[in-house]
């Protein structure tokens, strides 16, 4: 077996056996169950109650018919005078501030049709906000995607760094480098932890989809599967980029205690990307979204929501991936050189400028 594979295998087996890994995976699974199942339980328990306001007699007749029909829709409808009602029926229109529930709209349409199917046109839906029923659902998926990417990049990047420091502080690095090359050790470590992170994401996605499908909370359609695949793909891109940087951050310090400070610039960058991700979800075609798609530090978190929301053109996706790959291809050899140059400096923290100087001398 090649040294890289040996190192990678050790990373996977040792990390996955750690209690902290099992606990954090278990907690994540529980959170998924909670997010997916709980809203469903709350919604299914009682028939939904809707409020309808009417402005004219024709509308009142439709509304009253809807009240009578509501039972067979497992819902309740009340006619109210309150202007805050879910919808207002007026002159053949369903008016609402926001997109009303499909169930209510269906119910009203059926009630309307019962009067005179041929003479009456279907009710028109008029909402104050632009109507795109998929928009909210997809924004939720996009939010979930950036949350998972943020957590996964941060966790696995930090594990790379702390793995490097563990080898430094225990001096096991000396024994390892007596048998294998530093770049093989680094490659194996990044590869092993990357596989573990990818595998965990796949498992969480499959589990989440299975639970969602079984409980019927979310429709498992092509869009959702594409979103999951995207999150996985961008995890690979983002991880390859950040892991190399985190390895350098780890190689600079002698002990775990100093790791927080040397990785903090990287964790800050990931955190900022996370917040930019929110901006992008709200405005997926804005300047921020367009610019950050081509910055390798932010793209892994800001690009997936744009793609999920359908606001990224194919050329943009291709270019963004291209920038990401190019940046990673430049960063990895540089990181490997810095790592090789400083990883044996077990005495004290090495400044980045000093590390660069040492790396250039090699």
């Amino acid at each position, binding site marked *: *077996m090649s*040294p890289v594979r*040996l190192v990678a295998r*050790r990373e996977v*087996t*040792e990390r996955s056996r*750690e209690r902290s890994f099992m606990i954090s995976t278990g907690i994540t699974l529980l959170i998924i169950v909670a997010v997916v199942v709980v809203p469903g339980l709350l919604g299914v328990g009682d028939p939904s109650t809707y409020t309808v306001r009417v402005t004219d007699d024709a509308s009142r007749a439709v509304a009253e018919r809807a009240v009578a029909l509501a039972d067979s829709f497992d819902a309740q409808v009340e006619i109210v005078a309150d202007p805050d009602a879910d919808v207002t029926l007026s002159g053949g229109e369903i008016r609402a501030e926001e997109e009303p529930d499909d169930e209510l709209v269906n119910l009203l349409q059926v009630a309307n049709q019962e009067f005179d199917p041929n003479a009456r046109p279907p009710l028109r839906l008029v909402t104050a906000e632009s109507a795109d029923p998929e928009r909210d659902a997809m924004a939720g998926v996009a939010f979930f995607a950036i949350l998972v990417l943020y957590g996964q990049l941060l966790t696995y990047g930090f594990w790379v760094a702390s793995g490097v420091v*563990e*080898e430094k502080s*225990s*001096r*096991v690095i*000396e*024994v*390892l*480098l*007596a*048998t*294998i*090359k530093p770049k093989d050790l680094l490659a194996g470590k990044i590869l092993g932890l990357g596989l573990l992170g990818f595998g965990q994401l796949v498992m969480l996605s499959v589990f989440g989809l299975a639970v969602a499908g079984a409980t019927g909370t979310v429709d498992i359609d092509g869009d959702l599967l594409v979103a999951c695949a995207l999150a996985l793909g961008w995890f690979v891109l983002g991880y390859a980029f950040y892991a190399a940087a985190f390895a350098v951050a780890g190689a600079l310090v002698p002990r775990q205690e100093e790791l927080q400070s040397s990785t903090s610039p990287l964790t800050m960058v990931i955190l900022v990307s996370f917040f930019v991700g929110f901006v992008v979800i709200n405005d997926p075609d804005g300047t921020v979204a367009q610019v950050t798609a081509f910055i390798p530090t932010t793209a892994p978190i800001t690009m997936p929501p744009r793609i999920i929301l359908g606001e990224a053109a194919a050329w943009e996706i291709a270019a963004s991936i291209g920038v990401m790959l190019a940046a990673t291809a430049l960063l990895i050899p540089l990181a490997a050189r810095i790592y090789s140059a400083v990883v*044996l400096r077990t005495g004290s923290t090495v400044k980045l400028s000093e590390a660069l100087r040492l790396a250039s001398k090699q």
Partner: protein
Amino acid sequence: MFGFVGPNGAGKTTTMRIVLGVLSADRGAVRWHGKPVESAMRRRFGYMPEERGLYPKMRVRPQLTYMAALHGVKDPEGAADRWIERLGLSERAGDRVEELSLGNQQRVQLAAALVHEPELLVLDEPFSGLDPVGVDVLSGVLSEYAATGVPVVFSSHQLELVERLCEAVAIIKDGRLVASGTVEHLRGDSGAVRVKVEGDPVFDVPGAQVLDRGPRGTVFEGADPDAVLDAARAAGRVTYFALERPTLTELFREAVK
């Protein structure tokens, strides 16, 4: 067995790291059996760095298996089990290294260096921090291993131990070799003789200089030992008579002055 000694900062660890390829040398070359050392050869060396050199959270058996596999051993599990048994670690094979006593950690470390049956064993300060029993166990294993014909090189500040265990030593200072050879050769034949006569009478030996005169006897240099003995017997009852040879500690002090 070969002892590698020198004051702190002389370059012992650096030299060992260069031999193992952990560091690259500014100048010079490392040769093994007359050939420049390259990485395939190095995988057949065994190395134990000063302090630890193991994954603290990894369990003993997987750790040794991993080390064996990295060195290209065909049956890493078998090799790990063999050395676990040989160093009396069977009951600890499933423990994490950090949970072991220092003595047992040292054994695991030694097993990690030996698990691939190296052709050359290099150990950096293997005896530091060990109690006398631990020193005995370790020196026993090392002597046994060296007896199979494998060169064992180790650095130490415990010069009495080096003197007792090693056939040959090298003394370095500021990165330079100041003395090397068998201990016998280094101690040499100073030609001096220490003799003690009951009652400590003052006497001289014709043609010899007195290097030292005190309660532990008189040291003469430059005369035949027989002549010194004759003169001493003439002076009284001889209670001590020996060739005066420097200890490794004295050689060390002299060499690094």
